């Protein structure tokens, strides 16, 4: 490390400490005993840590028909399926958009860009009608399919694929690789950073998604964790009960996001160390 780097580390550390405040808060909040949860102004650090909130979260549903673990399982299934789906479909769509000449290519890409800009509110009701008519109510497909087409993913992946020189792909084709082979063996490894970035986004979208549960699932057994948590926190404003469970739930919801981010960012940085393109 030279002088500049040391200076840089110092100032970035200060800034990071500030940016990390919400993280500190979520972690501390989950372990606060009831009386500390209501301190005003809220405190960042917990004084008497307790596991009480987590027991409360688990026991809340003991008397109910469905245990909280059922929502967790649903969330897990839906999130894994949709994350994989979003990343794979996104890549499959971005590749031809970036590297193949075909009529309507600009139109399709324009449409995808356009859809980025539409406010979600406008799509709510029509989406509901479509899901209903396709018979996807109360199925896992009803959770997964509406999420799969992720315009941001295609946009980002295409931008990265644009950077890969055509010569490289042509060389591979001359060596006898099929089009799909080029995609899988040459293109994908080169855009790993973009894939990792999209994984973070896809995971976050799927994991935090309470909308499909609220709109498309009538049966409680099919609802997911984020929806369950919104029911916990819905009327909390003047409510003392369940605050503890809600703060524990917030942590439970947050940790997977954090883990996926760290894993994916490692991937981004590891690829960079030995990439030999351009």
């Amino acid at each position, binding site marked *: 490390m030279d002088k500049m780097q040391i200076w840089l580390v110092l100032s970035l550390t200060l800034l990071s400490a500030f940016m990390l405040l919400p993280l500190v808060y979520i972690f501390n909040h989950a372990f606060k005993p009831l009386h500390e949860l209501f301190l005003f102004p809220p405190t960042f650090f917990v004084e008497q840590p307790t596991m009480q909130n987590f027991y409360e979260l688990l026991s809340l549903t003991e008397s109910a028909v469905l245990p909280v673990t059922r929502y967790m399982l649903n969330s897990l299934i839906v999130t894994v399926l949709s994350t994989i789906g979003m990343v794979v479909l996104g890549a499959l769509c971005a590749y031809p958009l970036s590297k193949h000449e075909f009529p309507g290519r600009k139109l399709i890409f324009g449409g995808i860009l356009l859809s980025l800009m*539409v406010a979600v509110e406008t799509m709510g009701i029509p989406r509901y009608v479509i899901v209903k008519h396709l018979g996807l109510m109360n199925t896992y497909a009803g959770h997964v399919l509406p999420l799969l087409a992720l315009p941001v993913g295609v946009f980002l992946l295409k931008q990265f694929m644009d950077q890969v020189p055509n010569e490289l792909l042509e060389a591979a084709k001359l060596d006898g690789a099929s089009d799909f082979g080029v995609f899988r063996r040459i293109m994908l490894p080169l855009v790993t950073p973009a894939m990792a970035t999209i994984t973070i986004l896809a995971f976050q979208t799927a994991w935090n998604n309470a909308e499909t549960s609220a709109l498309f699932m009538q049966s409680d057994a099919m609802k997911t964790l984020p929806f369950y948590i919104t029911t916990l926190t819905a009327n909390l404003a003047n409510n003392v009960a369940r605050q503890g469970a809600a703060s524990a739930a917030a942590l439970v919801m947050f940790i997977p996001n954090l883990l996926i981010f760290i894993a994916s*960012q490692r991937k981004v940085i590891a690829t960079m160390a030995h990439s030999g393109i351009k």
Partner: protein
Amino acid sequence: MAPFLLLFGTFIVVPVIVGILLGFTYFNSIEFPKWAGWTNYQMLFSQDIIFLQHIIPNTFKFALFVGPVGYVMAFMLAWLIAQLPSTLRVWYALAMYTPSLTGGLALVVVWQVMFTGDRTGYINSFLLNWGFIEKPILFTQDKDYLMTIMIVVSIWASMGLGFLAILAGILGVDKQLYEAARIDGIRSRLQEIWYITIPMMKPQMLFAAVMSIVGTLKSGGIGTQLSGMNPTPDYAGQLFMNHIDDYAFTRLELGYASAVSMVLLFVTIIGSRFLWYLFGPKEGE
């Protein structure tokens, strides 16, 4: 590509088209929509005083500050992080991304502690102790402060996907190019950024720029979350999205809300056209 387009068509294109059509109707979510032609748009531009006096200026002010500042900051932070040894990078990237990762929940808590309206708020107690003010300021309820606070908070939370894309882009620039450039006579780091880093990662820069304009124009939760109400006090922090939410879910005039979101869409398109003109691939490239 076919499966993506199929899903894209079913769950995005069709709903959007229906949404556009809804903009021309009177729809209260219970009865079947009634065709209303251009009435909603006429209303919006001639009679909706809140929209004309508050929403439009607010949104532009907000977007003009948050968009460019957030974008430049994202690039600078990403570049600085890229200069560090790789073991540290993940952690700094994580720190910068945290506000986006935790979302609205933590955002509100952290900043409310700062701006709480009585002497217990950090900023208020600081100003009081140092004698700058006589009595505490109700920051989030005051129309003079709300917009500024919203801008600061949004910039703080703007290191999102665009930032990650820029970081990945900067790290992806081939190191050999820098060496070659040094031989060719480039000396300072600034020249390196201007002549090599930015041109080499144009696609990512464009992505981040479009995401930033879409993000700022479509954001709207902040004002309501900070002040705890929709509409915000005196409409000081009212943005496009608040207006849409207000009409769609409070007044249940979904046709009108759809029309408003179409105007928003139109504004966003113009904004990104402009960015495309600035950063996009030029003819012959």
